[in-house]
């Protein structure tokens, strides 16, 4: 009888321990399942200046609707951008592999009230380097605040709820348009690892591009191998020795694009700027042909 009680007590305590027990996977799983409405401020300090935005969020059933100047619906591998009521762009993919190995250690879970709600503060470390702080709502598991850091301790991006309503939205969060689904394939010239990032999925499209998704368990990015260079609007530049990469920051996201001998490469992700050089150095280098080389390339590819 005593043994049964002990087992029952263990099973009763275990979920609570796991929830507050600094397991990043559990924290993120709970957050994905949460349903709520919120207003979020995104503020990022990038090498090219501040990028910020205020957006409305509705999350239900693993689907997220982001409303601001535009509306973005996403979830379960689908993504749709709506502006002025019209669908501007959409995409759909299938995951082909398991999740990345978690490279982060999570500390604490100390009580940290936020927006007059009970919440816990969790810190993410890569080795001894603080990379993130998550404030998790105790009732719903929603991530009320996420702060990401550069390796020098400076804040890169802060995503903070300024309003939060745990009542599940009445309708489906958004309408994901039916679109052709890209399926994950195997084999590519794109590396299986870039720095601490692991290649999880690879997609090939009839239009002639290859797209790989990388993650380190928290930050993630995609690399696109394209027949021609993707043009960025009003880009800045990152110089790594003699190599020059065009880049553009949006709130919460960076995009790189550069020409290679075989066409173009582009990178889109949420990784902090100090991680960029190591990742970029693992990819094909920028190529700047001379005038004759450019004529030859334009004529014959």
């Amino acid at each position, binding site marked *: 009888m005593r043994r049964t009680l002990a087992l029952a007590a263990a099973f009763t305590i275990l979920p609570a321990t796991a929830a507050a027990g600094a397991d990043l996977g559990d924290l993120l799983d709970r957050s994905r399942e949460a349903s709520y409405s919120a207003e979020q401020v995104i503020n990022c300090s990038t090498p090219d200046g501040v990028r910020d935005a205020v957006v409305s969020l509705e999350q239900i059933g693993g689907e997220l609707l982001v409303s601001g100047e535009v509306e973005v619906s996403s*979830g379960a591998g689908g993504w749709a951008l709506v502006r002025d009521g019209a669908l501007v762009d959409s995409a759909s993919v299938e*995951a082909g592999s398991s999740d990345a190995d978690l490279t982060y250690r999570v500390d604490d879970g100390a009580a940290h009230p936020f927006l007059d709600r009970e919440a816990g503060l969790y810190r993410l470390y890569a080795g001894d380097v603080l990379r993130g702080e998550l404030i998790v709502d105790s009732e719903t598991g929603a*991530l009320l605040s996420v702060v990401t850091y550069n390796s020098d301790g400076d804040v890169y991006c802060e995503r903070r709820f300024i309003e939060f309503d745990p009542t599940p939205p009445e309708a489906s969060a958004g309408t994901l348009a039916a679109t052709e689904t890209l399926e994950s394939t195997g084999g590519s010239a794109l590396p299986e690892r870039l720095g601490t990032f692991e290649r999880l999925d690879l997609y090939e499209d009839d239009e002639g591009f290859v797209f790989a998704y990388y993650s380190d368990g928290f930050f993630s990015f995609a690399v696109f191998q394209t027949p021609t*260079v993707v043009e960025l609007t*009003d880009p800045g530049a990152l110089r790594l020795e003699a190599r020059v990469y065009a880049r553009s920051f949006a709130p919460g996201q960076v995009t790189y694009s550069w020409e290679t001998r075989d066409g173009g490469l582009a990178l889109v992700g949420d990784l902090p700027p100090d991680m960029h050089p190591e990742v970029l150095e693992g990819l094909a280098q920028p190529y700047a042909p001379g005038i004759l080389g450019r004529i030859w390339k334009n004529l014959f590819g």
Partner: protein
Amino acid sequence: MISAYLDGELTRAEASELFTHFGSCGKCVAEMEGMQKVRTAIRSLPLIELPPGLLGDAEPVVVPLRRNRGFLVGAAAAGVAVVIAVATLLTPTPSALSVDDLNSRFGARVSLDPAFGPAKVVVPDVRDMTE
């Protein structure tokens, strides 16, 4: 025909026909007189001897007309090549993907990520959105 007449290249019959025409075409007569004056003026110019040694001992070289024509054809071809090269440089090659395409595909894959949610909210840069 006037030029041919002045060069003495017309037959008697052709010259007769030309003069018959002159009877009713004052403009043609005036044109012939003008051309005659120019020819007379050119012929009245003094002949100048070239200074000794200007040509040296060089043998005169006769350049066949065919070679000149080849040069002109080559120059024209080079001009066309330059035009094509400039046009090739200036004509932007079509991009297979736009920034929107990158965002949509990345966003779709992110929605399968364990960290998907408020931590992964991405607001597309409106400057980059093309219609």
